[in-house]
């Protein structure tokens, strides 16, 4: 049995205790009557005792029934849910769009979400007494707030009132999937109820990407009548910041901690009606200490972007000073870019953290030579890497030599990057330590051992790092009198956020003179988690980047910080680079070429930046915390401190739907890094769709069957509630219950009078004296 007003029912049922309490109170408080003829009283009472007790019980029961009937009547019971009266009610699920695009303001100042909430409330008011309502918020990821449906329509309405726009993209697929899964779970019900889905969204280009078909969830949604708001035909102009890209995500200040200007490329985009117009957008950029986000931006860097009609993307390079931010204990700064206010405010600012440190700690794994060997031909990979990483004393890179047999967690704890120059000497169990180092955010570069002829080390390496590559047992030599040449890979194209972005302009002349004599290239197969950075002219990869665990099914895509230079997916937070030739002259003449130093420097700086720098995920996406972090805390002076735990896999436990800057802390409370959550700019696009195309796209959720789209109906914009109105409203049981309460009240009065013997028996009160 359900009730329209369970609260009233609860209060009423509690009120049943009132007669009992009154009875007990009066029992305690009544002043006793001193009575002399007690023996006759006792005698009379003994005769009547049994009957009196029964009378009292009957009276109490009738009084309780009066109140209980009133309580049930006020609670407005709906017995049809219990199957007593058949299925007369409907289940109405409100899918309300509170994604980032729903905060778009119209000309009257009202947001789209406000309009959706008003429509939803109007429609809920039109429900009949037997109907129930559910609520799913579409702000990514979709949030099933009331699922299964509840008959407490008032409570659902209150929840709708409390909805706020999120900064995540609209997750229509997730909402329909959740609804379908729920309805599938109800399939065993003997008495299925008609189900209606109310889809309340403006269906702007950011809310619905009709280029990607909805995944059919027909089995769950079969029989569901989907009512949707018509898409807004008015395209709204919106300018957004879509990226803030510092040239280096790790800023090395050197020992003196001198102030440093950092070049930052700010990317803007226009959507909606703004695209066709000329315009100017001013851009402000400032670097803030994460702990002082609300500090005044006196030293803002400013720039202007001039838009030409039809232009949708633009970028501007700006310079910002990181001196003050460098003093922060967090070891990071947050670059905050903002543009002029427009109709959609959520995407008018963007934050990106930048790691600031005085020097990088790099370890080189290889045996040391103590016996001469100073000739160029005899130099080992470590010998070549060392000067390449720290060519001058002022280079902010500190190098530590590590014995392959002595790799343990404490040794690796303070390092940012690790070059494994002699992997064949690494004990099998130490590979797990290296994997842990990478998972916790470290960068690992592996090169083949220069002196090995048979490469058995690849097996434990691949197992430990969870890669689906394959290696040959022997290296491949270049044909006689020939060398392999290197060419930049298109996938890592300079300027696309890759490792070698800063070398983009000079990369071609730098790689051209490099010759490769021998190579142990991996066969990447169908691996999707690996990015080629540099390839040989025979097509084999020469320098590849990946995330640890990228080749293991189930780990893919779990917690990848997005927006990092390496877009590979895997479970680890760090980055793994594999260089197919040992950096010695027997394998390649790279050590003797100009490319060696910039390649080593960029690998370290950008690689460490991509693996351990602060992250800038988008709202609603899974967020991986920095290694060692056990919780993240919101940094904002204007709101209450909010902390979310990090699970064992490093993911933040609950989704973050609002933009903001968070700081990750370990169990001891030490800062581990900064996470800047930004609004989903894709979801904030404000273009409009053709209603027919949109109708077909939404209908796709019912599968490819013909007529599937007919299950979707546009609501009448003038009278949306009319689609749900039918029949009379109110509980069919309230009136009978009220009449029952009245009847019981009359019975109580009569019984009370009867049991009290309050009538006058003839001659009864006339005593012998009177």
């Amino acid at each position, binding site marked *: 049995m359900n009730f329209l007003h369970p609260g009233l029912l609860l209060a009423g049922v509690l009120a049943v205790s009132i007669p009992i309490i009154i009875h007990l109170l009066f029992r305690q408080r009544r002043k*006793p009557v001193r009575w002399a003829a*007690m023996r006759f009283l006792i005698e*009379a009472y003994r005769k009547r005792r049994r009957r009196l007790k029964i009378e009292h019980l009957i009276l109490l029961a009738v009084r309780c029934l009066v109140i209980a009937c009133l309580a049930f009547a006020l609670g407005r019971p709906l017995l049809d849910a219990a199957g007593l009266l058949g299925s007369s009610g409907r289940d109405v699920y409100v899918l309300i769009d509170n994604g980032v695009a729903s905060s778009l303001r119209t000309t009257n100042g009202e947001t789209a979400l406000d309009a959706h909430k008003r429509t939803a409330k109007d429609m809920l008011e039109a429900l009949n007494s037997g109907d129930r309502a559910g609520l799913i918020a579409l702000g990514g990821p979709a949030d099933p707030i009331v699922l299964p449906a509840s008959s407490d329509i008032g409570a659902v309405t209150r929840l709708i009132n409390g909805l706020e726009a999120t900064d995540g993209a609209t997750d229509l697929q997730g909402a329909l999937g959740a609804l379908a899964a729920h309805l599938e779970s109800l399939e065993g019900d003997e008495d299925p109820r008609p189900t209606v889905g109310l889809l309340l969204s403006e269906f702007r280009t950011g809310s619905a990407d009709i280029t990607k078909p909805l995944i059919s969830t027909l089995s769950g949604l079969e029989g569901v009548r989907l009512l949707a708001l018509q898409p807004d035909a008015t395209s709204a102009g919106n300018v957004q910041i879509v990226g803030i890209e510092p040239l280096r995500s790790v800023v090395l200040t050197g020992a003196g901690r001198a102030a440093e200007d950092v070049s930052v490329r700010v990317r803007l985009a226009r959507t909606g009606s703004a695209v066709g117009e000329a315009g100017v957008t001013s851009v402000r950029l400032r670097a803030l200490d994460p702990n002082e986000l609300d500090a005044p931006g006196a030293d803002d860097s400013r720039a202007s972007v001039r838009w030409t009609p039809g232009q949708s993307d633009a970028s501007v390079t700006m310079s910002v000073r990181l001196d003050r931010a460098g003093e922060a204990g967090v070891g990071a700064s947050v670059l905050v870019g903002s543009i002029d206010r427009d109709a959609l405010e959520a995407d008018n600012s963007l934050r990106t953290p930048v790691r600031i440190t005085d020097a990088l700690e790099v370890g080189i794994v290889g045996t040391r030579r103590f016996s001469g060997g100073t000739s160029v031909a005899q130099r080992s990979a470590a010998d070549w890497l060392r000067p390449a990483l720290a060519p001058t004393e002022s280079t902010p890179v500190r190098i530590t030599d590590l014995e392959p047999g002595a790799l343990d967690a404490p040794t690796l704890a303070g390092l940012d990057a690790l070059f494994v120059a002699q992997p064949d000497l690494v004990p099998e169990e130490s590979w797990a330590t290296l994997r842990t180092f990478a998972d916790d955010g470290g960068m690992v570069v592996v090169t083949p051992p220069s002196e090995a002829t048979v490469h058995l080390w690849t097996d434990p390496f691949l197992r430990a790092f969870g890669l689906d590559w394959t290696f040959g047992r022997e290296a491949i030599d270049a044909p006689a009198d020939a060398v392999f040449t290197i060419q930049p890979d298109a996938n890592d194209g300079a300027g696309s956020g890759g490792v070698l972005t800063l070398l983009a302009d000079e990369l071609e002349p730098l790689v051209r003179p490099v010759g490769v004599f021998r190579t142990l290239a991996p066969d990447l197969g169908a691996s999707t988690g690996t990015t080629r950075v540099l390839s040989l002219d025979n097509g084999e990869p020469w320098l590849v980047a990946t995330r640890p665990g990228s080749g293991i099914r189930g780990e893919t895509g779990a917690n990848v910080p997005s927006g990092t230079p390496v877009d590979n997916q895997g479970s680890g937070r760090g980055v793994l680079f594999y260089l197919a030739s040992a950096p010695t002259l027997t394998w390649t003449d790279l050590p003797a070429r100009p490319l060696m130093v910039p390649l080593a420097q960029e690998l370290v700086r950008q690689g460490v930046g991509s693996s351990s720098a602060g992250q800038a995920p988008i709202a609603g996406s899974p967020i991986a915390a920095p290694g060692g972090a056990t919780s993240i805390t919101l940094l904002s002076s204007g709101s209450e401190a909010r902390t979310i735990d990090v699970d064992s896999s490093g993911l933040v436990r609950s989704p973050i739907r609002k933009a903001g800057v968070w700081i990750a802390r370990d169990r001891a409370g030490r800062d581990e890094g900064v996470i800047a959550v930004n609004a989903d700019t894709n979801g904030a696009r404000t273009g409009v769709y053709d209603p027919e195309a949109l109708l077909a796209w939404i209908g796709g959720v019912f599968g490819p069957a013909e007529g599937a789209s007919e299950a979707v109906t546009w609501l009448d914009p003038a009278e949306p509630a009319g689609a749900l109105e039918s029949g009379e409203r109110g509980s069919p049981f309230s009136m009978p219950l009220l009449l029952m309460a009245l009847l019981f009240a009359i019975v109580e009065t009569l019984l009370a009078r009867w049991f009290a013997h309050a009538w006058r028996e003839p001659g009864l009160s006339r005593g012998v004296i009177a």
Partner: protein
Amino acid sequence: MTPPPPQAGTPSAPSAPTKPISGVDAGLYLHPQTLSRLGTMELRAKMIVEGVTSGMHRSPYQGFSVEFAQHRPYVAGDDIRHLDWKVYGRSDKLYLKQYEQETNLDLVLLVDASGSMNYGSRSFSSASGSGQKTSHDGRGEWTKYDHATATAAALAYMSLKQGDRVGMGIYADGLLDSVARSGSQAAWRRIVGALSTQSVDRPTDLGRTIDQALAKLNNRCLITLISDCFEDVDVLRSALARIRHRRHDAIVLQVLDRKEVTFDLDETAPFLGLEGEGRLRLDPRAIKADYLKAFNEHRESVEKTVKRFGFDYQLVDTHTWLGPPLATFIAKRNALVKRRKRS
């Protein structure tokens, strides 16, 4: 017999102030209205009582006084002074003349001071002789015990006025206090003083009381039992039987409060017994019929028991003036005595 003239200490007029005895104003209990109704009445002993002084009541001691009783045959040894020579002259037979000796009446008041007597629903001010609002111990109700005290005072006053001796015993679970028989006109004050200072909170044991009282009586008396008679009828019957066996006359005055008789109570409440019966919460309306039935059966049973022994019974209501019912009762009693005497 002419009542003795008023003496000091006797309320000669309804408005005459009375001297306090034991700190209690005796006038509280002897209301002027009562006095005015009882002043001319005489309390006659229905049975023959043994008086020690010559009075208005018949004496079982037949002697040679004023009033002839009977003849009896002469036997050897009789005093020949009492021979009726006239009979001898007419019949040649020797008879002695015997005379009836008149004595005064010993009135013994037995007043119940058990806890059940401590109930009253009438206000003290409306019932007391002086209009005082509360009793000497601060009570605002005129209890059955107060009424019994007033009754005892009235009877004592009336008896003393006609020259009889009056004694009094207060009882509950035994004889608690007593006032020796006396013909002094101030004896009624001592009786009121003793009654008014007695605590009224003990259970009843009438059988024990009667045994103790009878042990103190060496001549036949008029025993007046003033009680609510809530004890078992069998106990009462046993007590009266012993009184009858000792050839005493008795009057039972059953003092009841009107509320006990009518049971006009409307609100559910806990009822608290006055003799340790405990507490009982009930709706009085629900058991009124059964209560009244039990109560009236008991009262009727008491009356029948008393009359079965040839004693007199009178119901006394605390809410009515004492004078009229007592006067009516005494008048009826005197008429009965006279009829017996004539027969």
